[in-house]
């Protein structure tokens, strides 16, 4: 079963250079070149530096964004690509100046693994919005100088036996946290948590009516979070198919946008709508669902331009905003909350033999609300 690649004429491909003295070789799972399937690849990781944490990766969550990048949808993929940005595991080594964790600690790592650490955004622990650009955990160039090893190669993600990262970007997990279930918290979880935080749904006490569009892995996580925070949650999908899943995850209402009656019932009522859909689609219906001063937060990695009419924003002072994961402080808060309140994604653990199949499932937008997690130990 091949992967659904795009833009076959525009991508970058370069062999991994030989292992340097300040690196070690590591086994990984990746796509070696455009058009190929997943295979075992040997990558190089930096040896532990003063501020680094090395951990054995036990599980790594699978996110639809991985598919977009592996399949070159934005025409900027660097092959070989080792995806995975929801890593969980156990610390096996720390640098001399590390204070955050010790050997044996359970840890997680999310979508970014470096930032400038100097700008206003980094100073307020919004490293994801670093003004010089955060460095993504895979398919990114090393520019800020806090990642060791060969500076010319791209970053390689969590589908690998070990990871080395500056302690700043490590998320701490309690010793008894269930590892596989915790993995998606550092992407799916924080992707929904941070906009809830920024748009006032975490502190403040006011009960909001929150809509969640797209009832996949991220959307169901959002339903659980918004419900656990005490808000009135409306699941929004383009058919009736996800109604049972949505209600089971805690949604109080369900809108099937293909039915005008279903939409009409909730027009002009929502304070905040979080839209997880990453395929091209119309947002007009969601703008209608917002109440005065409401915000539609766009989260999906949609590549083609999105239309909207000024009048839908002007008449009731509505906003369309974007959000992208969250800073380290916020991610830690999200993880702490979820573990304390027992709010976990519903996961399905898979091994490497199912990767191509899972990628195709996610690419066809037919996810059943489950978050897939790769069992690294079983796969490598």
């Amino acid at each position, binding site marked *: 079963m091949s992967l659904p690649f795009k833009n076959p004429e525009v991508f970058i491909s370069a062999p991994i250079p030989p292992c340097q003295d300040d690196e070690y070789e590591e086994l990984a799972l990746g796509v070696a070149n455009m058009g190929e399937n997943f295979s075992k690849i040997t990558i190089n990781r930096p040896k532990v530096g003063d501020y680094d944490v090395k951990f054995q990766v036990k599980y790594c969550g699978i996110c639809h964004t991985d598919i977009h990048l592996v399949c070159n949808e934005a025409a900027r993929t660097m092959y070989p690509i080792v995806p995975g940005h929801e890593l969980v595991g156990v610390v096996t080594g720390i640098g001399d100046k590390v204070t955050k964790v010790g050997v044996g600690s359970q840890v997680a790592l999310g979508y970014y693994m470096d930032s400038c650490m100097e700008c206003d955004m980094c100073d307020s622990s919004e490293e994801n*919005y670093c003004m010089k650009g955060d460095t993504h955990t895979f398919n990114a160039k090393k520019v800020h100088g806090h990642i060791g090893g060969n500076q010319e190669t791209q970053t390689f993600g969590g589908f690998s036996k070990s990871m080395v990262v500056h302690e700043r970007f490590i998320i701490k997990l309690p010793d008894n946290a269930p590892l596989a279930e915790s993995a998606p918290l550092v992407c799916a979880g924080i992707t929904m948590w941070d906009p809830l935080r920024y748009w006032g749904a975490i502190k403040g006490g006011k009960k909001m009516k929150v809509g969640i569009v797209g009832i996949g892995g991220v959307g169901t996580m959002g339903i659980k979070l918004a419900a656990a925070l005490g808000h009135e949650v409306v699941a929004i999908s383009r058919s009736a198919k996800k109604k049972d899943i949505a209600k089971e995850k805690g949604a109080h209402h369900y809108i099937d946008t293909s039915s005008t009656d279903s939409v009409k019932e909730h027009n002009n009522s929502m304070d905040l709508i979080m839209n997880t859909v990453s395929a091209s689609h119309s947002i007009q219906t969601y703008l209608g669902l917002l109440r*005065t001063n409401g915000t539609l937060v766009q989260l999906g990695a949609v*590549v083609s*331009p999105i*239309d909207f009419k*000024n009048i839908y924003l002007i*008449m009731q*002072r509505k906003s369309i905003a974007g959000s*992208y994961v969250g800073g380290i402080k916020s991610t830690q808060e999200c993880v702490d909350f979820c573990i304390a309140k027992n709010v976990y994604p519903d996961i399905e653990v898979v091994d490497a033999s199912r990767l191509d199949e899972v990628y195709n499932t996610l690419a066809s937008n037919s996810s059943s609300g489950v978050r897939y997690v790769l069992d690294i130990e079983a796969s490598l």
Partner: protein
Amino acid sequence: MKFSHPQIAVHKPIPAPQEDEYPVRAWGVEEHGGTFKELTIYRHEVGDHDVKFDMEYCGICHSDVHNVCNEMSEVRGSMYPIVPGHELVGRVVEVGDKVTRVKVGDNIGVGCIRDSCLDCEVCDNGDECYCLKGFTHTYNTLKRKDYCHIGGNPEVQNWGGYSEFDVVHERFVIKIPNGMPLEVAGPILCAGITMWSPLNHWGATNTDKKLSIGIVGIGGLGTMGIKLAAALGHRVVAISSSDKKRDLAKSRGAEGYVVSKDPDSVATERGKLDLILNTVSAHHSLAPYIAMLKNDGTLVQMGCIAAPMQYTQMMLCLRRISIAGSLIGGIQATQEVMDFCHKKEIYPDIEVVGAGDLERVYTELQDNNSGAIRYVLDIKMSLAANK
């Protein structure tokens, strides 16, 4: 003047007056495709909460052109006869028994809001323009069945400010400060509040911080916005599609100037603006404006453009940028901007005209809406000219 969409125009001839109504001289267009002429309309006697005022001036807004010429097919067809005007300025001649805000002899104004439900949380919050039931525009609207603070015949359309008198519920009346020249007050009730309201909502009217604020579109609204933002102590960057408005923008208080179609010019302000107010009413690309916003910045869209605008997701997601809309402003905010303008002597650039000039002015606004001048109809002069 060019009219549009004849098939959706609504004709509602003026019926005979009710007992509580009396004739008033006004200027309007009698039927779709017609010309401006003097008409007789009827207004109602003063009710308990009403304020009756003698009209001195009424500002002319491009929205008047959209209404008169039936250009708002997205919303609904206009009702003819139509008497436009939503920048009313005059002197109080009579007040109802329960009126407390103003007294006979006071100078007052009325803007775009003739009525709202006064009962929802949004009205309670002073945002009557966003009333959950929908506010009632000063003209070319009908009295509502679900709320109504307007007397007279409930079936007749509301008449705007191009008229001798008007009668409005005191809640929607703006006090004009003593000493403010009346002829400049009109455009503050529309252009002024349209620019003040987003400055207020997005934190620029009540802060010690010096913000960087972009204003797109250097016409009547834009120049008002430049003056207000500069008077509030902010660094104002005027943004236009060519170099032509540079001198005008600088003379009104803009420190910076960007030509949006020139990538090098846009690059000089890349990532530097906290807020951008976009007044442009024709379709255009938003990409250069989004690029000039700081992280967490907001682009406020104000032009009523029928065709869809575009943005790309990553532009918003990777820097938590917002695109919002804004529409005039509530009564309290309108009073604030009126008082602020008087205190800082911020006046729109105006040209006073008579009713005989209306055809010419409307045609000009239709052909070229880029001028920075706000036209103001001199009601007294027009009444005298036509006696």
